[in-house]
């Protein structure tokens, strides 16, 4: 079973060198234990572009589709047998990247 583990923050800016080192170590562990599917860091919402092509023309707008104080700054896709297992991984991941995580099942 796969879960999307989103990294939530209210602070723009990249991970510090210490955080980056901890994230790398955490990712190495995920790969070794077979929990790794994919992960990526994202640019901030100020660099996002929204496109809506449901109508006649594709409408392009600058900025995030939802303005909020907290935003998505990265994510993992993890393989885990159940919610308890992925929550345990996410607890370690939250410590490593020093940010809040949200766990959602992938259908």
């Amino acid at each position, binding site marked *: *079973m796969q879960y999307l583990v989103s990294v939530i923050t209210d602070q723009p800016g990249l991970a510090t060198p210490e955080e980056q080192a901890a994230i790398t170590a955490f990712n190495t562990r995920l790969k070794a234990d077979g929990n790794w599917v994919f992960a990526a860091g994202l640019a901030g919402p100020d660099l996002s572009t929204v496109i809506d092509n449901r109508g006649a023309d594709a409408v392009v707008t600058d900025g995030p589709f939802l303005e909020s104080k907290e935003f998505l700054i990265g994510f993992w896709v993890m393989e885990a*047998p*159940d*919610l*308890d*297992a992925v*929550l345990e991984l996410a607890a370690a991941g939250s410590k490593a990247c020093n940010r809040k995580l949200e*766990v*959602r*099942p992938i*259908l």
Partner: protein
Amino acid sequence: MNAANAANTANTVNAPGAPDPSDTTDAAAALARAHSEDWARVVAALAKRFGDLDVAEEAAAEAFATAVERWPAHGVPPNPGAWLTTTAHNKAVDRLRRESKRDQKHKEAQMWNDAPQEPVGVVEDERLRLIFTCAHPALAMDARVALTLRMLGGLTVAEIARAFLVTEAAMGRRITRAKSKIKVARIPYRVPAAEDLPRRVSGVLAVLFLVFNEGYLATGPDTDPLRPALTAEAIRLTRLIRTLLPHDGEVTGLLALMLLTEARQKARVSATGELVTLGEQDRGSWDAALIAEGHRLVRERLDSGAAPGRYQLLAAINAVHTSARDVRDTDWSQVVALYDQLVRVDPSPVVALNRAIAVAELDGPDVALAAVDRLSEQLAGYHLFHATRADLLRRLGRSEEARAAYDRALELAGNPGEIAHLTRRRDQLN
């Protein structure tokens, strides 16, 4: 579903002490007893077998409905629990066939059902798995409470809705959403690992304590008669968990706390619906059997020599209170010493407030008032903070300040029995 409701109603009215079905032909009593003893066992066994709480719950309800129809006419089966489990199992299989989702469901069941097939209903700790699933920390607290009452307690959705003063539709949605999260996010159906157990047990106990308090605190002239049934249900489920986890001190502590609180229930509300404080209660109307059992459990924990947790300390405090035949005989130094221990385990301002109330009896209301006033910032919105201040000020003869504090407490209080008590006290000021 009406028949299932009838079984539940019989259970609510007649839960403990129903006669042994082998000694009676009274099918209603046998049903009430089976519902109280076997509901959780049937749901747990089916949840394990089919890997789906929805299927387990509906099949259990259908089996009890069938019993309501059959037992009065055909007699009570020799082993009602086994009959119900088998019937529920067949209902679940029928339903899965009917929905022709058999392959998919069975595939899902396989993922949960990693243990070899055991005879249904034999494995005792299946109820324990069910408890930890229903009280999982990934579910919202109100959902945990509702799910525990439905799956373990066997209360109907309508009964739970009435007890928590929400519509049946809203409660139905709450339970459906929780079941759906368990299934889709795959909340596991198992007892947590040893290192997680204390934390997870404390989550289960928090659910049961909330159920108990919901029934206890809101008791008053205008509240639904089902609310006191919540205290009985909380006690029943805590007893069940104690059977399953007999060596957990906090489980025993919580059970003792509930019993010693429940024992004073009758004395707590006057004939006119006014709340009666501990000092003014008619101690003769306390339930001696519940107190004896509560004291026995507290002694058991003391004898263990293990460091007590929050519930054990609260139970010990209640044991001191219920040991005094007259409020003047209360061992206040013992109560304060226990509160000192409790403050170390749980340094919340509400505990500090309760400690101050005991300090008033030991060292006088002036010492207590100084302690209470230190909490004014944290507890400004809590009616019992102002009620406690009002009482201490009254005892110190500071009537004007007492009146203002009673007024503030009355603005914040919600329970009609408490309002009646505070109003009378305020109006007695000269």
